């Protein structure tokens, strides 16, 4: 099954992610010929093959991005399609000021927020039924329902930070930029989300982990924030 696996950057054997240490490609430091940025630049100059290559690289991650955030798989397909159409339309204005991956996820995130607003508006004013996912009607091939249920219980912003880090493999700075949050807030929320997820997945380990967390914290540093003020972008 093709899928965007979690980042697994916690695994020391995993290949280090390129965006973590690299600077964004600029005119002075052009990207490698096969890089996403190079392909996008080629596409902006009319190369259809470059777009095809980009689509093949990102169709699964983008679909996964939406599939994890929407209950309806048809919505995920539509939003994915809309993302690539926006990419097509915006190709002429593309400038390699940031990683293409960040650029693409920023587009997807905006489309997702617009979709959520529309859904909320329809549910509020048009009285359409809320799209609450029914596990019995989910995609038969989807597994890991218990993980998804645990993730759903997280705070919305914590969940978004966790998903962007684990599945979209964005750096802290990129997440902070996308969600319009301070960098330290992103780190705190990510740690809190991972801790909460661990407690949800392993309830028996929660008290011990909490104890270990308390002992592991330095005296001068406050504990993981219990209540982080709601800043940044509204999801």
């Amino acid at each position: 099954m093709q899928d965007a696996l979690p980042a697994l950057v916690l695994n020391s054997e995993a290949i280090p992610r390129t965006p973590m240490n690299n600077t964004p490609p600029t005119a002075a430091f052009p990207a490698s010929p096969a890089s996403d940025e190079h392909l996008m630049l080629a596409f902006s100059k009319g190369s259809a093959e470059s777009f095809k290559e980009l689509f093949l690289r990102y169709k699964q991650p983008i679909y996964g991005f939406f599939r994890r955030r929407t209950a309806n798989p048809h919505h995920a397909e539509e939003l994915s399609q809309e993302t690539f159409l926006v990419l097509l339309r915006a190709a002429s204005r593309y400038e390699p000021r940031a990683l293409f991956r960040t650029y693409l996820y920023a587009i997807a995130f905006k489309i997702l927020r617009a979709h959520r607003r529309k859904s909320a508006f329809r549910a509020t004013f048009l009285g359409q039924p809320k799209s609450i996912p029914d596990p019995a009607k989910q995609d038969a091939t989807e597994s890991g329902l218990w993980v998804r249920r645990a993730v759903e219980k997280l705070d919305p912003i914590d969940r978004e930070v966790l998903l962007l880090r684990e599945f979209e493999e964005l750096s802290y700075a990129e997440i902070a930029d996308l969600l319009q949050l301070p960098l330290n807030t992103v780190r705190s929320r990510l740690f809190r989300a991972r801790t909460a997820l661990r407690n949800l997945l392993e309830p028996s380990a929660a008290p011990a982990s909490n104890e270990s967390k308390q002992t592991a914290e330095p005296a001068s540093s406050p504990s993981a924030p219990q209540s982080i003020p709601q800043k940044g972008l509204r999801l």
Partner: protein
Amino acid sequence: MSTTAHPIAPEEIMAHLDGELSAARAQSVSTHIETCTACQELVNSLRHTSHSLSNWTTGAVPAGLEKNVMLAAAKSPSRPSSSGSNWFPRTLHLSRKQWMRSLAAAAAVAVLLLAISVPTLHRFRSAGDKVSVLVPLRERKTPATFGQPVDSARVTSQEEQQDASRLSSAYQSLAWSSAPAPPASARALKEYKVLPSEKGKNPTNVSGFSFSGPMIARTVSLSLIAKDFDSSRASLDAILARHNGYSASLSVSTPRDAARSLQASLRIPAPQLPAALAELKALGRAEAENQNGEEVTQQHADLVARLKNSRETEQRLQAILTQRTGKISDVLEVEQEIARVRGEIEQMEAEQKNLEHRVDFATLDLKLSEEYKAKLDSPAPAISTQIHNAAVNGYRNVADTLLSLILFFAEYVPVLFFWIILLCVPAWFLWRRWRHALADAI
């Protein structure tokens, strides 16, 4: 591990595993993890959690997605390079927000064009009215000669020059149009304006009052600052006498330690208004001037027609009274009707006279102020008096302000409260519902 001596925060360990630390800091954290059991447990826990997420798969991409996107990519026009020779603009691919912005910009431009063009058109019309008003002024003379045919030979050269200057100024306001420039002299202007076929026309000729053009009731307001108030006051009387005008009302104010002022409502024969106005302006510095012209042709014609009908009705009633015989009650009824019609006729005649008077005599509201010079003969009040007066005024201002606030709240707070309840409560319910729906969508 000691709570007080642990040098690495768990979030930093997580950041190290995420590759978010600098090389030097990552080295020290890595060294610490190798020696710290609690940190090793934390590392294992984080790795396990991350690994658990790998079970969340989303399935394969639907086949329709690739098909649709590739179809759209094929339809999308190939982008020419910036150095290409294709100079045609690329197809606009605007988002909804960009479309909205473009439409808003277009609407703003349209509004701007309207805002510019409407006053220009209005000015054009005003200039047209200004030209048309000159025809009756030229064909009429003083109020004493109403109803008499205009004898162009009796028009003095001075009036011709005045009319010529007015016509010229009117045409100057039309200078941007492509119309040919009219002749300069008044006589030539009249020939230019009045066509031979129109000379015999007399559309309105009732009760000895004839017009061949629109009737304009003109009003002018003028504010002057005069250096010598006394001489200006005397000149004002002379100007009025010279132009056969009179003052409908006049009041002079001579306050202490302030400039004297004169306010008057002058009535000047309409043909002599420009000359009188020019002479009045010479009395001092014109501070403000406003001229208006109200066309009352339709109103006058309507009045004349109604008057004619009422007179005919009266005549018929008189004939009935003299020629027919009947009961006393019928006779009384006819007499009552005659009295009513007579009352209407007199009222309409008064209105007509008033209307014609407004046309004959332009109204000039004059405000003549003296250029004030402070005098030393009146000593300023003592400082203590000034402080006392200021304190009293301040107290009054505070009291007035408080009273105004209380009155405002007493008057409008119930209405505001009513509208708040009427609008905000449903809005709050909708907002709350929308927030819940948004939270469910997330």
